[in-house]
């Protein structure tokens, strides 16, 4: 099985951080990529305007799983406003890989779930 996206993606796919449900989650949202079938759920425990804890569940490809892992590391302890300002380009840059155009949606799916969770938007497909 080949995961040709570099060391960071490989590390976070094989040893994902925060891959767990949060029993005390304040908000959570599942996002789905109908093109490839990736599914990821981001759960966040809020303490006022701060994200106290972040976790994810995913049946997703390596790049999506790695992106969710990296995102949750970044979110824990971050202000909600800062999380909402996180751009897709930031998420892709964190992967340290040249993400092909056809896989960009995989990479940004966790961030989309996070934004929808924090914004109270309806789930998107």
């Amino acid at each position, binding site marked *: *099985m080949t995961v040709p996206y570099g060391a960071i993606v490989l590390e976070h796919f*094989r040893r994902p951080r925060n891959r767990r449900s949060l029993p005390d989650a304040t908000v959570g949202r*599942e996002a*789905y990529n*109908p093109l490839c*079938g*990736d*599914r990821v*759920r981001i759960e966040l425990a809020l303490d006022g305007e701060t994200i106290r804890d972040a976790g994810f*569940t*995913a*049946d*997703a*490809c390596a790049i*999506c*799983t790695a992106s969710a892992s990296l995102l949750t590391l970044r979110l824990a302890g971050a202000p909600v406003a800062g999380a909402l300002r996180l751009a897709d380009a930031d998420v892709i840059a964190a992967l340290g890989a040249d993400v092909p155009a056809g896989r960009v949606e995989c990479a940004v799916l966790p961030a989309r779930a996070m934004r929808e969770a924090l914004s109270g938007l309806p789930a998107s*497909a």
Partner: protein
Amino acid sequence: MKVVVVDGRERYATRERFGSADEILVGMPSELVRPRLAAGAYVVLVAHEYKYELPILRDALRAPVRFVGMLSGRKRADGVRALLREDGLTEAEVARLHAPVGLDIGGREPEEIALSIAAQLIAVREGKPIAHRRAGAER
């Protein structure tokens, strides 16, 4: 035997494609399968997608199900087994995975492969020894 079809992809898990299924479930596959991993259940993974296979196998190979099989060539099956070991599954747990799934009846068409898998499930149900895997699954 009750047949439950699970998929994360809405376009595949349709009543048109699985007219005789007792249930068709679409969502996060690992979460939909987990409560059904009961004693006597047969789990067959045919998505050919490691994104679905690995999360389900982590649970299924540790559950009291009767059978766990995966559609795959031998090389890809070995890759999945290696990742399961990395995830902490024991050799005994990994050894429960039947991959490539299906008896060697010589068929290559989708319907023939499905028949070979159904034949293996019946053989397991009846306690018959399983000596052969599908010959077409060498890659």
